[in-house]
């Protein structure tokens, strides 16, 4: 008799704090993520600390002492940061113009979304064909007597960069447009009533309200750009100027079968990426993060 009330009381106390049977609905998803994401990560961490020879940290040591491996971090950042930045910055004015309703907006949005469907291989083949030495672009520029020699835009940094712009820009644009249409236009109209021109209206009202959204967009676009793997191989120069860190990790795992080295490279890649995101989100937390839909006034 004494046990039952105590149990009920515990259940009530837990329910007061929000813990009850309904939380069991979380269990399947949590199990999947724990088994397929967290466990492999810990396994990889363990693996990276058990290299075939040397001490505990020698897989990491090897990565950072070998310039050919270490420089992949810089190479990746050199490709991913400018590409993500360009995609976000270019989206803002275009999305700003596309707010509101006008004829053909849906069509324009659809055309901007289409590159998402292209896939890496079509983008790569298209870039190789279009920008190649005998491609349409070089042909046009030479015929217009703007250049004498064909430009080299493929199998180097620019090929990879452009493929990231083609696949990343539509994504960034959609997110920015979505954040921007969440900002109440009456705020800007109020400023206009008070005599503010478009520049103060944009820089002192819209941009500050948009900034947190831009930070999120940057992070997501950066993740896409950071994991550039197929296009770095197909349109890039995978053993030289576009040897990104994912290629280093892949080679360690599937070419050299050095699983400790591969796990170390994958974890370093994740750490570098999370550092960049943490910096961006940290800057974001300094900004205003309230409602953007305007009060009742």
């Amino acid at each position: 008799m004494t046990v039952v009330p105590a149990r009920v009381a515990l259940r009530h106390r837990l329910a007061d704090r929000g813990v009850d049977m309904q939380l069991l609905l979380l269990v399947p998803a949590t199990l999947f993520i724990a088994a397929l994401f967290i466990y492999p990560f810990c396994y990889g961490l363990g693996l990276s600390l058990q290299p075939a020879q040397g001490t505990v940290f020698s897989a990491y040591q090897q990565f950072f002492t070998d310039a050919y491996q270490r420089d992949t971090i810089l190479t990746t950042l050199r490709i991913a940061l400018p590409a993500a930045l360009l995609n976000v910055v270019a989206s803002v004015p275009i999305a700003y113009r596309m707010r509101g309703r006008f004829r053909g907006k849906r069509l324009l949005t659809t055309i901007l979304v289409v590159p998402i469907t292209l896939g890496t291989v079509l983008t790569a083949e298209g870039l190789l064909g279009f920008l190649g030495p005998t491609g349409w672009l070089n042909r046009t520029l030479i015929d217009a007597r703007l250049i004498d020699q064909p430009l080299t835009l493929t199998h180097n940094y620019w090929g990879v960069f452009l493929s990231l712009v083609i696949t990343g820009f539509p994504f960034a644009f959609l997110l920015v447009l979505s954040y921007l249409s969440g900002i109440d236009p009456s705020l800007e109209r109020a400023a206009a009533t008070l005599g503010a021109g478009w520049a103060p209206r944009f820089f002192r009202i819209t941009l500050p309200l948009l900034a947190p959204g831009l930070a999120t967009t940057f992070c997501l676009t950066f993740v896409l750009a950071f994991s550039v793997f197929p296009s770095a191989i197909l349109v890039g120069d995978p053993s030289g100027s576009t040897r990104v860190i994912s290629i280093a990790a892949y080679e360690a795992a599937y070419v050299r079968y050095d699983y400790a080295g591969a796990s170390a490279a994958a974890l370093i890649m994740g750490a570098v990426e999370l550092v960049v995101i943490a910096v961006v989100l940290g800057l974001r937390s300094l900004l205003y993060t309230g409602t953007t839909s305007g009060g009742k006034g």
Partner: protein
Amino acid sequence: MARAEVAVAQAGKGAPGGNGPRARKVVASPAAWLVWGAVTIFFIGLAGVVGSVVVNSFGTRWFDTWLPQGWTNDWYGQAWDEFTLLPVLGVTLTVCLLVTAVSVLVGVPASYVLARRSFPGRRAVYLMFLLPILMPPITYGIPLATVLYKYGLAGHLSGVVLANLVPSIPFVILTMTPFIEQIDPAVERAARMCGARTAQIFLRILAPLLIPGILAASILVVVRTVGMFELTFLTAGPDSQTLVVALFYSMSASGIRAQQSVDAMAVIYTLMMLILLVVALRFVNPTQLVARVKEDVE
């Protein structure tokens, strides 16, 4: 309609000479030209990229000329036979269906709890679901593939499905949360007052209301899974490749295949993705994925 035309005039035309009633038009017009100029350049580049693949996939020999010497559609037939496209499409379809079914079944209840309840550790659970989306697939793909090989799952369909679940379940959870928040909790409370159990509330009240959201989430998961290269690449065996991976192999092993038949296959892939995307756009307004706002802004 008149208002829409004014908006177009302001956005698109903006000729400096136009004696607009407001100063804004004159000031904004160079910027407008710049913006639409940039959009046009992007579109021209895009058209060039897509066009050269499409033209090549229909061309015979194309070396140093504007257009190929002749036209043919043999490459499509060749691509279909050479790449054994039918089984590849079968694998792609199977993987997509399994991944979508499991991630919806597992993700929707979880997103319900995360959208409605507050409990200790909620932020930690949320972060756990956010991380797979914030990490590049290669970073967790390599350790995951190692684990899956250890248990003999990689190299088969099951490994590919399991690997693709990692980003899909969080994706369903994040997409479904706004849909669930839109449903008034009073409806559920009323059902509970009438004696409905949790299972009944889920099946008879929430599921019908959530069907649009579930459809949207599943179509987006299908689009992502068809396009997901890295995870499938790391875990697939020879008979469990999806279309992207088969395409990548056929292109990176250059010299073995005619470039035109790779292009033909890439065109087939894009058409497939395009159909999926058009279907998806019928259910989701892409601009409302993040912030659910009224369409009528102006």
